[in-house]
């Protein structure tokens, strides 16, 4: 009981996760800055930002529901923190695990996006409305390829005639024990999953929903103080959860002992570096170009991977 509470509130979920999320966010910002020939923030900058915002007055705008305005950020953070319970954070066994938790995790991860969209849609600010429209449009674009890409390891197991389930811990073990790494057998969907994660986190080049030169801060334009802090914490948590999920499903590495945990964490950081490099290299896509990219290339790539799997199975 006491251990459960500790797991839930401090480590690996809860405060430990939020701290890790902010550190990952710092790594993201610092690396991006170095790649762009800037100095970048010091390591505690995201913590300082979060503390400062949490202590600030929250101004609820006219014409929006104050209850929703205050509730949506909490729901977003709660969703992200709950999603973290089912993934093997830092290579440790998930706090909870049951068959089908992959689907639940994916749903909980989308909660953040929906909360951001709703938060924008329920204010009367025009930048927020335009931002909310883009948030939802983008969600419908990347969500299907992203989910399919994350389900692919399970499908691959099924096609290979091995026991498969939609349970993250089992899939992670299977990925760890796979004779050939998923990175080599499922390269296409791995890329789709990683890029899908960038879409989910609204990182460049998928940052049209918050393109500052067009619509200021997008859906969150009216947010300041606590609400903004909660949304940004939720994003930080989601960054860790998403990286963990992709690592667990594709790169494996869940084992026992501290070495496995360190290796797993290093793998997530490796993925983060890849994401930062992509952010550095690419210019922002317009929202219609994002939709085009996901439906005309992303989904087709996933289906091509599945087709390859089936062909391989049939021909063998």
């Amino acid at each position, binding site marked *: 009981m006491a251990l459960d509470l500790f797991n839930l509130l401090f480590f690996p979920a809860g405060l430990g996760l939020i701290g890790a999320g902010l550190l990952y966010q710092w790594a993201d910002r610092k690396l991006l800055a170095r*790649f*762009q*020939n*800037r100095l970048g923030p010091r390591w505690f900058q995201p913590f300082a930002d979060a503390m400062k915002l949490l202590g600030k007055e929250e101004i609820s705008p006219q014409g929006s529901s104050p209850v929703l305005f205050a509730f949506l950020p909490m729901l977003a953070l709660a969703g992200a923190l709950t999603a973290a319970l089912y993934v093997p954070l830092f290579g440790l066994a998930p706090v909870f695990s049951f068959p089908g938790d992959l689907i639940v995790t994916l749903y909980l991860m989308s909660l953040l996006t929906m909360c951001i969209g709703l938060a924008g849609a329920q204010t*009367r600010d*025009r*930048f927020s*409305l*335009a931002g909310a*429209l883009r948030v939802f449009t983008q969600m419908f674009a990347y969500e299907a390829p992203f989910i399919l890409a994350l389900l692919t390891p399970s499908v691959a197991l099924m096609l290979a005639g091995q026991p498969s389930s939609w349970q993250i811990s089992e899939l992670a073990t299977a990925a760890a024990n796979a004779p050939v790494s998923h990175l080599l057998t499922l390269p296409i969907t791995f890329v789709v999953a990683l890029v899908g994660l960038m879409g989910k986190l609204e990182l*460049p*080049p998928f*940052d*049209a929903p918050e*393109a*500052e*030169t*067009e*619509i*200021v801060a997008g859906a969150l334009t009216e947010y300041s103080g606590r609400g903004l802090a909660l949304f940004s914490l939720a994003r930080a948590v989601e960054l860790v959860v998403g990286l963990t999920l992709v690592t667990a499903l594709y790169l494996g590495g869940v084992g026992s002992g501290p070495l496995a945990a360190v290796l797993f964490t290093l793998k997530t950081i490796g993925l983060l570096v890849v994401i930062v490099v992509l952010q*550095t*290299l*690419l*210019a*922002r*896509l*317009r*929202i*219609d*170009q994002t939709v085009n990219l996901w439906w005309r290339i992303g989904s087709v790539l996933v289906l091509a991977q599945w087709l390859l799997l089936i062909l391989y199975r049939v021909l063998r």
Partner: protein
Amino acid sequence: MNASTTDRFVIPIGPQHPALKEPGHFEFTVEGETVIDATVRLGYAHRGIEKGAEGRNWTQSLYLLERICGICSHIHSTAYVIGVEQMAEVEVPGRAQAIREVIAELERIHSHMLWLGVAAHDAGFDSLFMYTWRDRETVMDLLETISGNRVHYSANILGGVKFDLTDEAAAAILKGIDFLEERTRHYREVVSQDAFFLQRTRNVGTMTREEALQLGVVGPTARASGVARDVRVDAPYIAYNEFPAQIQLLGAGDLEARFLVRIDEMLDCYRLIRELLAGMPAGELTAKRMPRKLKPGEVISRVEAPRGELFYYIRSTGGEQPDRVKVRTPTLCNMGSVLTQTVGHNLADVPMILVGIDPCFSCNDRAVSVRRAGRAEGQAWSWADLRRYGINYYRRQLNLDTDHRPTDLLTY
């Protein structure tokens, strides 16, 4: 404007908006993400500089007019001094004219580098933004080496230039532009080959040659649409006769062409500066004598600023002060093209199209008083009148009081 009853609403951009580095107000009517109408309101940064020049003598006005723009300060003072020198019938030594041209071209490089970064930022390509601004430091340092100042070089004085170009400075410039040329060639590759960036620039904001002529656009914006319009070539001033610039023309008329024209211009600047430094004429830096009072008369001077044709009208009534200085900056000519090009485009393209003309709002803002046809007599405003008018205007706008007493306000 009621978003709940129709999907058509107005997105205001400015006067305060992250895409604008200076105040201007645009209203874009959008249907979903598509712009169907656009209006602009300028004048937020009106500073009364033209009026200010009338209260200062010929030399003092030079320093005032140089401060119209921070990016192209040298070209403003050049336009003014060549006008005044023409009126005073003063012959400026060749070396001074060549030094003026060197600084004008360095300024063009600095302005285009800055623009490249701002435009990349508006496209969400921050890496390019950071790198161009880092490299821009090189040309800023060169200007500081020559003049002692990074922004307002104060190179021009009436009848010549203030400082000489030493051999050490020339060597530093050559070294600096070697580096810049290499970087500029790299940026040209990025801008013309990066697939993600091309999605944001190719066939976006296209303006045909006919439209460009009709709207009367100037500078790189016109040259990207195939309009051969460059004052340096059409009506050479300072040393452009001896050291001619090559006009850079492209026909596509889209944003990509506007990027490439400016980058090609930078490459031409490097060539021109090398030629200037190699063939720098020897001689004096200033004319023998510059009169304090000018004969009555009027003059028009045109120069090619980084953004396009800059136009000065100067009138003298024979005193120590200009009677009238009228400035028309290239942004005003190009602003109309923003409104026509954005219609039909995605809202996401609007900042790109706006920045495509390289707008400079506070240089562009002028006060215009429209005289009614019936009233023959014009009204001459003094500096105090203007100030009173300005205070009253904002009082009315802010509803501070309904009964304004001008005499009190003057001491406000």
